């Protein structure tokens, strides 16, 4: 069975109409909440383009496409090379976008479709690409993600891969990521699911856990590994690009950068004691966790991202339960320091309003964190198509007292308009909000993906007590810096 862990753990309130059992699998985005209260719950979600299936157009998109998410996940598997079945540009644009964020080499192969392939099918292009990737990279795994092109001409990628002989030297895993469906986050989750569905094996149960986080920073991935280690767990953390996309200097080019989730770990995910999904929208999808639950009966806990004190409490409570151990002292100390910091700075934040935007699972978790520290998250926006609404329902009890507007499937033009009405004191989101922050003359606290205009995106932690502490100080200090810069007096003390 899959359990949806709600926030906060002790005062766990069920959002209206959401059950705590397998029913949540059938809870599609069209029918976000079964039951009478549905309308009330969804009331704060703006209908942007009434009467239309999708917006007429987008101005300054607040999302990128699914193959990017797929590439990122494959980069988090040891010895893997992502291969996009489509035009050369898809791979190159995505590389450029990821390189600008991580500031690390990001090699993504392409089947380099040409007109012939578009007319006669991409089998030959893909086969040749597989040959060349194997020859040049000697990978353990090639992760093949489709694009609009290969999806639309109807290439049977699964069949091409089935017939492709790797001489047993490498594994191929395929995921369907047409760029016209969903966002990079949808591609991300679909790829985690696909890896597990291809590789997980049953057998004698182990005591370890599977950990499937939303798109988080390398620093946060390292924290997830560390904290599960403190509970004596050696998790299958998937993906894990904490080393592959945040590594050290090299003396020669590492075609397969060290690090990543090993294939053995992914295979063993079918024997784990439990799966933990971090990111509420996963409860609304076919995910790695739901697959393992169905195929191998592994219980799956779906939680929000552990950002903030109470959300971290909830996560650690699950780890404690799964491991049978109590919360380590070290974490208690970190918690105490975080709470102490909250108290020290609470007056700086009193009465402030924030606009939050980014991937839906991150945006919701950030909104809850802001509410926890006394900043009203008055507008929560995402380019994600629908899961924000689902997550909002899950998160709603905690946000109830704030007059929150949810803005799913948005672009920066709509977000900008809504933000002006929201009169925020600060923005919290990724770097594409920098122009909006300039326009509104408020600070932007950069978190999430992408961060293209600052160094250290890989180290932007926000999970756990420590990450929350860093984020908290960033919020407080950017407000103080803004106040100090705009003050005629230029105070010495704050």
């Amino acid at each position: 069975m899959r359990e949806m862990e709600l926030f906060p753990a002790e005062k766990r309130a069920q959002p209206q109409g959401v059950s705590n059992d397998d029913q949540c699998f059938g809870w599609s985005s069209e029918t976000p909440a079964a039951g009478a209260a549905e309308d009330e719950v969804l009331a704060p979600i703006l209908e942007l383009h009434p009467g239309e299936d999708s917006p007429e157009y987008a101005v300054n998109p607040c999302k990128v496409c699914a193959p990017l998410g797929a590439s990122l996940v494959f980069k988090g598997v040891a010895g893997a090379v992502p291969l996009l079945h489509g035009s050369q540009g898809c791979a190159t644009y995505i590389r450029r976008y990821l390189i600008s964020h991580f500031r690390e080499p990001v090699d993504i192969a392409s089947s380099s479709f040409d007109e012939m392939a578009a007319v006669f099918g991409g089998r030959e292009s893909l086969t040749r690409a597989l040959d060349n990737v194997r020859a040049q990279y000697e990978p353990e795994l090639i992760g093949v993600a489709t694009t609009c092109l290969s999806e639309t001409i109807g290439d049977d990628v699964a069949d091409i891969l089935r017939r492709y002989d790797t001489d047993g030297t490498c594994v191929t895993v395929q995921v369907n990521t047409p760029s016209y469906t969903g966002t990079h986050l949808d591609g991300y989750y679909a790829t985690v699911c696909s890896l597990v569905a291809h590789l997980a094996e049953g057998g004698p149960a182990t005591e370890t856990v599977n950990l499937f986080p939303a798109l988080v920073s390398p620093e946060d991935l390292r924290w997830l590994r560390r904290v599960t280690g403190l509970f004596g767990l050696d998790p299958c953390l998937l993906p894990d690009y904490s080393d592959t996309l945040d590594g050290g200097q090299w003396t020669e080019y590492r075609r397969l950068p060290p690090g990543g989730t090993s294939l053995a770990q992914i295979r063993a995910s079918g024997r784990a004691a439990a799966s933990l999904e971090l990111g509420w929208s996963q409860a609304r999808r076919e995910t790695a966790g739901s697959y393992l639950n169905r195929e191998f009966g592994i219980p799956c806990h779906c939680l929000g991202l552990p950002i903030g004190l109470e959300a971290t409490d909830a996560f650690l409570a699950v780890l404690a339960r799964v491991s049978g151990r109590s919360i380590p002292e070290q974490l208690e100390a970190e918690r105490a320091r975080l709470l102490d910091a909250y108290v020290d700075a609470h007056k700086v934040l009193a009465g402030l309003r924030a606009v939050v935007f980014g991937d839906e699972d991150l945006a919701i978790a950030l909104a809850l964190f802001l509410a926890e520290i006394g900043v009203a998250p008055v507008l929560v926006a995402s380019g994600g198509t629908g899961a924000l609404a689902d997550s909002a329902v899950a998160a709603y009890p905690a946000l109830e007292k704030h007059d929150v507007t949810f803005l799913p499937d948005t672009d920066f033009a709509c977000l900008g308009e809504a933000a002006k009405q929201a009169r925020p004191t600060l923005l919290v989101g990724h770097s594409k909000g920098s122009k909006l922050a300039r326009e509104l003359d408020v600070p932007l606290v950069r978190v999430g993906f992408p961060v293209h205009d600052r160094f250290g995106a890989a180290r932007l932690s926000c999970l756990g007590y420590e990450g929350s502490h860093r984020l908290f100080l960033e919020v407080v200090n950017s407000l103080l810096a803004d106040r100090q810069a705009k003050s005629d007096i230029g105070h010495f003390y704050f």
Partner: protein
Amino acid sequence: MPDNTLDNLLEDRKGQVLETAPDGAPAAIRCETRSAAGSVSQRACVFCGSRVVLYPIADALHLVHGPAGCAAYTWDIRGALSSGPALHRHSFTTDLRETDVIYGGAVKLERALRALIAEHGPRAAFVYSTCIVGLIGDDVSAVCKRVQADCGIPVIAVDSEGFKGTKKDGYKAACEALVKLIGTSADPALPTAPARSVAGINILGEFNLAGEAWMIRDYYERIGVPVVATLTGDGRVDTVRRAHTARFNVVQCSGSMLGLAAKLEENYGQPYRRVSYFGLEDMAQALYDVADLFVDSDPDMPRRAAALVSEEMARVLPALAEYRRDLEGARAAIYVGGAFKAHSLIKALRHLGMRTVVVGSQTGSAEDYERLRQLCDPGTIIVDDSNPVELSRFVLKKNADLLIGGVKERPIAYKLGLAFCDHNHERKIPLAGFDGMVNFAREVHGSVTSPVWKLSLRSRA
């Protein structure tokens, strides 16, 4: 010692790399071909080629017809500055979804075009087709024609489906779009081709990255050459439409705009001249060459060009000498989009006492590579359409101290402990012209002489 650096290539990549021979023996390179599947080419696609060429036209609506990704990845991607409107810095897309792919996107495109034109009042609109549009068969031209008739501005379809060739084909599609615009001026006072009213030039292939077009334009104006239009840096639709009234076209960045220059010569009898604005030599040569073009109507112009060059040289040479002291003997690797720029960079690096040991480009022609071969010292690796595995091997083999490239080359340099200079469209510092040469030297110097390399693994190895 046997060396297999050039043999250890993918079978599909053989012939696209050469090492210049000690005796200068001729050698040809395979180029202008589709990227090898699976090679991890640094190239993008047809759409990218079109988008970068037309992008700097600041008062046009640039609507990307396709899924949001193609538009999102190119949102404000170039450092192409505008002195006025900045519509080009927004990213407009029809954001096609699954239902649009099934039922067709033409209706959505038309609604989007009309709404966006009404809202933003552009002077023209470019509609870029992406891969998916080429497959589902939307009649983009018909939509553009209808909207143009109703809205009274040029609405031009750019045939930039990603898979229909290489980035260079995208340049071609963009130039075709420009050809449609040039000579269409709504101003009845302007003569139609081939009569010309202005004794000036068009600057082609200059995109005003970090304000470079302004510097170049200033040089031309100082020697008495009026500039009719810059294509496309700090571009305006109306000046592009008037471009046929100039006497000459002066073309930089051969890859993107040489075809346009040839077409304009054919259509309007405008002769063209190829130039480069990078490095002192090429910058000076550009001014001399253009002054020569006007010697019939203005015999004093060459003297003024020479005077400007001396004045600028006197100003920048002392600064360059300072940088050269520290850089003398250092080895450089170059991997850029167009090979024409690589020529200038090799010469500019020589001014700094630096030798080029690896040089390559994404889109060079056979002619470009032959010129590079003649220009380079023996033992230089020349490469077309390379990839990270090759590039890293080449720079290590040739013991380069510096890599010049763009965003995708940067981490290769940094991981291996090499200095890096960004000479791509994201740059924030002007590198063209005389002052640009000083900036270039400062950029190179700042990276090559940084103390961090002493700590890096490779220098300790």
